[in-house]
């Protein structure tokens, strides 16, 4: 019996009246309920980017090394030489993780892994960029945030460790704005030969369409639509919209698909991720310029009595749609059976451009595939500037005890060591990890390609909150600086835009500003955007999250000798600051953590200076002068110096002189002016380094020398001394201590 489509049903599907009219006029009739469901997920923000599509066009997406562009396929592909390439992409699973942190995060990892092997690439590393509310204290919120944090980390470990892909790091930030709406962004990178790039297109009329992987259940029903709404207190009732992951199945699917792709039998392949079977059928058909017809009665099902609506909209995990060259069916069946995977022949490629879904004999859905995949409405949202951030006058910041402030900053979870997190991730599987998590960038040897990659993710949400454009530019600059400090040349970027509700003009303004900032910076650093993800409606009852345009950046280290770590290595080495001493105090962590003020104008990025500093750092490293290099970010020179002393296996002290007797110590140590790194060099190379920087017109300051058991800092007037053991203890154990609070 056909259900009449009422205005309420349309609204419950997250579609506006205008969108419903658009559907009717394009179909020349009213859709049935199943078709309405199909439209609702395909035209959700999550699948269609209807509110952001025009903005995303601003990104630079081309370059000499780009083999597959952003948006063309599931992930972009970049040349790394020797006939090899990398496919990488970042994706969010924020909403599911807010409701069910373990499964939400686990399935986020599973989904992005499938996106990568769908390209024909073997996934070889993961990064996670995480944001949570504050975890300290005994309040119910803090307890809840700890539960979310622990659950997400365990979920990521559960999936990534089992599948056997090393998690090379990422970042974790804590801030009130993420209370109740954590951000879970996962980056996966895979390697493949140029000749192995696979397209997610339904090619060849008459080719059989196979379904392979887990049986379809009612889990994750319409999760894409769920992810395109604000999170509210009632969201917990949406728990059925959260999928359950099975990493073992994911691993089987990965191996079976790679074997299948190598066999030459595959004409097209697509992951059933967001919007499940719906999305995979209409997208492959649309890309192939063909149609696809499937029969849902043939789909392996976990539960009895599922309707076509449920089967099409289910987001059960670990499923793929594979279009096979006619005549290869037996070969394909053998591979599925070898890996003990459920599979079924569910349909075929047609020539009429329709996504047609049957149940037994009757037609349930008949919609032009292209219309679903590409004709979603595109909106220009209203954008209103928030009031501009105001520069905080230095005189307005009370002097604080800088000795204590450094300890407080090192204990702050955002800055403290993340070993509690990284130890739970298998970061050594695949026997390629050269620099493990915890340095400026993870460094990984890709054995099959004989290439060394460096990867990092960055975004300071505090900067972005106070100035989204500048914050976004800095996110790119910092990612590039992190890579350069580890010896790499930046190659390309993937981004994950995490924002609040785009229907609110001030949120849309943040998004536009951030996109333009990212785009500009990616052009300046010559790092095209190869794809990414947009996550909107990141709201909790008190408001939107801080705008968080996370940047994942991949670089290549051309020579093994250039690999550089962040920590001091030799007693007696000379310590230099490359870049300005700086004085910008707005939006600093010092201001936030020590003074409780989340305000001010974030540091300004000067592209010319930034590029000069990065080129100089690269050149110094390539000359073999640099023993260690560490970028200055949250907590300024003070925190960076401490980390240089305490983050290596052997801890080392240092004696440093900075600024003048008249300079305030807290400003010297904790300002967050950009374009800076701390390096250490052998005493015999110090002259050469100074000459080099003078020739390049790059600011350089002789800070002091490595050695002893204390960190000693003086401005000539005031001298501060910290025991290295104390700094280490504070920084290393902070999160572990907090997490053992009841």
């Amino acid at each position, binding site marked *: 019996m056909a259900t009449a489509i009422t205005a309420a049903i349309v609204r419950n599907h997250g579609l506006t009246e205008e969108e419903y009219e658009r559907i009717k006029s394009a179909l020349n009739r009213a859709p049935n309920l199943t078709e309405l469901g199909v439209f609702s997920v395909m035209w959700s923000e999550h699948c269609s980017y209807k509110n952001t599509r025009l903005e995303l066009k601003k990104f630079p997406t081309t370059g000499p090394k780009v083999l597959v562009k952003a948006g063309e396929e599931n992930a972009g592909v970049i040349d790394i030489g020797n006939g090899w390439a990398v496919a990488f992409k970042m994706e969010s699973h924020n909403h599911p993780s807010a409701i069910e942190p373990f499964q939400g995060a686990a399935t986020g990892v599973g989904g992005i892994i499938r996106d990568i092997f769908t390209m024909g690439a073997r996934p070889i590393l993961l990064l996670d960029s995480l944001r949570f509310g504050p975890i300290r204290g005994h309040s119910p919120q803090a307890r809840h945030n700890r539960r979310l944090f622990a659950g997400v980390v365990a979920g990521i*470990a559960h999936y990534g460790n089992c599948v*056997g892909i090393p998690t090379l790091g990422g970042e974790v930030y804590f801030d009130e704005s993420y209370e109740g709406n954590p951000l879970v962004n996962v980056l996966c990178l895979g390697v493949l030969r140029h000749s192995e790039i696979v397209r997610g297109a339904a090619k060849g009329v008459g080719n059989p369409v196979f379904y392979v992987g887990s049986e379809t259940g009612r889990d994750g029903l319409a999760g894409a639509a769920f992810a395109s709404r604000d999170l509210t207190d009632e969201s917990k009732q949406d728990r059925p919209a959260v999928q359950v992951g099975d990493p073992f*199945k994911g*691993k089987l699917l990965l191996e079976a698909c790679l074997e299948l792709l190598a066999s030459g039998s595959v004409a097209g392949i697509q992951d059933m991720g967001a919007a499940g079977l719906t999305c995979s059928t209409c997208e492959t058909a649309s890309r192939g310029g063909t149609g696809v017809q499937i029969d849902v009665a043939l789909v392996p099902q976990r539960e009895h009595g599922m309707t076509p609506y449920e089967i099409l909209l289910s987001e059960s995990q670990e499923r793929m749609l594979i279009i096979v060259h006619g005549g290869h069916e037996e070969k394909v069946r053998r591979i599925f059976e070898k890996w003990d995977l459920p599979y079924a022949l569910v349909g075929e490629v047609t020539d009429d451009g329709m996504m047609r879904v049957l149940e037994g004999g009757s037609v349930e859905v008949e919609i032009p595939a292209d219309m679903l995949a590409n004709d979603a409405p595109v909106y220009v949202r209203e954008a209103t500037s928030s009031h501009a951030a105001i520069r905080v006058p230095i005189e307005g910041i009370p002097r604080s005890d800088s000795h204590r402030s450094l300890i407080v900053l090192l204990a702050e979870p955002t800055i403290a060591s993340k070993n509690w997190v*990284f*130890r739970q991730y*298998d970061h*050594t*599987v695949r026997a*390629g990890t050269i620099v493990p998590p915890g340095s400026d960038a993870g460094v990984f040897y890709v054995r099959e390609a004989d290439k060394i990659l460096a990867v990092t993710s960055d975004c300071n949400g505090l900067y972005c909150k106070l100035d989204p454009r500048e914050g976004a530019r800095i996110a790119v600059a910092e990612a590039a600086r992190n890579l350069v400090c580890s010896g790499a040349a930046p190659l390309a970027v993937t981004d994950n835009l995490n924002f609040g509700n785009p229907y609110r003009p001030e949120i849309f303004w943040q998004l536009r500003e951030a996109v333009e900032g990212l785009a500009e910076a990616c052009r300046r650093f010559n790092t095209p955007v190869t794809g990414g993800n947009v996550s909107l409606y990141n709201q909790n009852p008190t408001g939107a999250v801080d705008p968080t345009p996370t940047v994942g950046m991949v670089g290549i280290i051309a020579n093994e000798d250039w690999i550089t770590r962040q920590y001091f290595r030799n007693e007696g080495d000379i310590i230099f600051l490359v870049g300005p001493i700086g004085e910008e105090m707005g939006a600093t962590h010092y201001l936030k953590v020590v003074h409780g003020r989340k305000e001010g104008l974030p540091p300004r990025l000067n592209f010319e200076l930034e590029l000069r500093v990065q080129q100089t750092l690269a050149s110094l490293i390539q000359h073999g002068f640099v023993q260690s290099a560490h970028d200055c970010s949250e907590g300024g020179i003070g925190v960076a110096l401490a980390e240089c002393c305490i983050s290596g296996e052997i801890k080392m002290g240092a004696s440093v002189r900075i600024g003048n007797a008249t300079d305030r110590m807290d400003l010297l140590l904790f300002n967050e002016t950009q374009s800076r790194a701390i390096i250490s060099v052998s005493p015999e190379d110090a002259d050469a380094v100074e000459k080099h920087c003078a020739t390049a017109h790059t600011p350089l300051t002789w800070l002091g020398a490595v050695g002893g058991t204390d960190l000693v800092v003086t401005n000539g007037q005031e001298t501060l001394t910290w025991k290295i053991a104390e700094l280490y203890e504070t920084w290393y154990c902070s999160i572990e201590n907090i997490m053992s609070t009841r």
Partner: protein
Amino acid sequence: MKIAVVQFPGSNCDQDCLRALLGVGRIEAEYLWHKETSVSGFDAVVLPGGFSYGDYLRCGAIARFSPIMKAIVSATAAGMPVIGICNGFQILCEAGLLPGALIRNQRLHFICQPVWLRTETTDTPFTTQLEKNRLLRMPIAHGEGSYFADSRTLEMLESQNRVVFRYTNASGDTTPESNPNGSLANIAGICNEERNVLGMMPHPDRAWDRRLGSEDGKLLFESLVANLELAAAR
């Protein structure tokens, strides 16, 4: 000479083990699918790490029923060298080829970190190129690696000199702090009574290339190859 690296469906260190073996040179190494029923043609077997069957029940509990395990059990009785690493160790215990069990890490979390190991005996085909008390550096990566056995079994292992590796600090002392997972007597690896079956939680397959920060793991694979060569020459 040919060494088998068994592939269970959820093995994820199979490629690392194969590369580590081929890195030694002088031998062939091949994958052996878990649905195979024979190890003939092979001179030694590696059970690699991973999550053999997802390990939702108990690590290695299902893998022991794989067709290939029957063949491996009889081959070990005939003296074939077999090494189980991480999940491979868990499978060897589940299959009854080694005594005791690997239980949840003391602090319940998965742990991935480098450790120091002290060589307790060189009297296995995998340790002849080491010296007693030699310290080795390699990573662990497991959630269930805490070695447990009843006190009689433990006494037997000690008296028969069957503890092969113990977790220590950088100076070679077995301290509580250097025990990453709560293993009894800091045990990281043991062998069977006939000494041809070795199980260990740490990963020599992730420490055989200077880029990885340690090449100590290579010594185990080199010992194995040298012993196979000796046996072939005899």
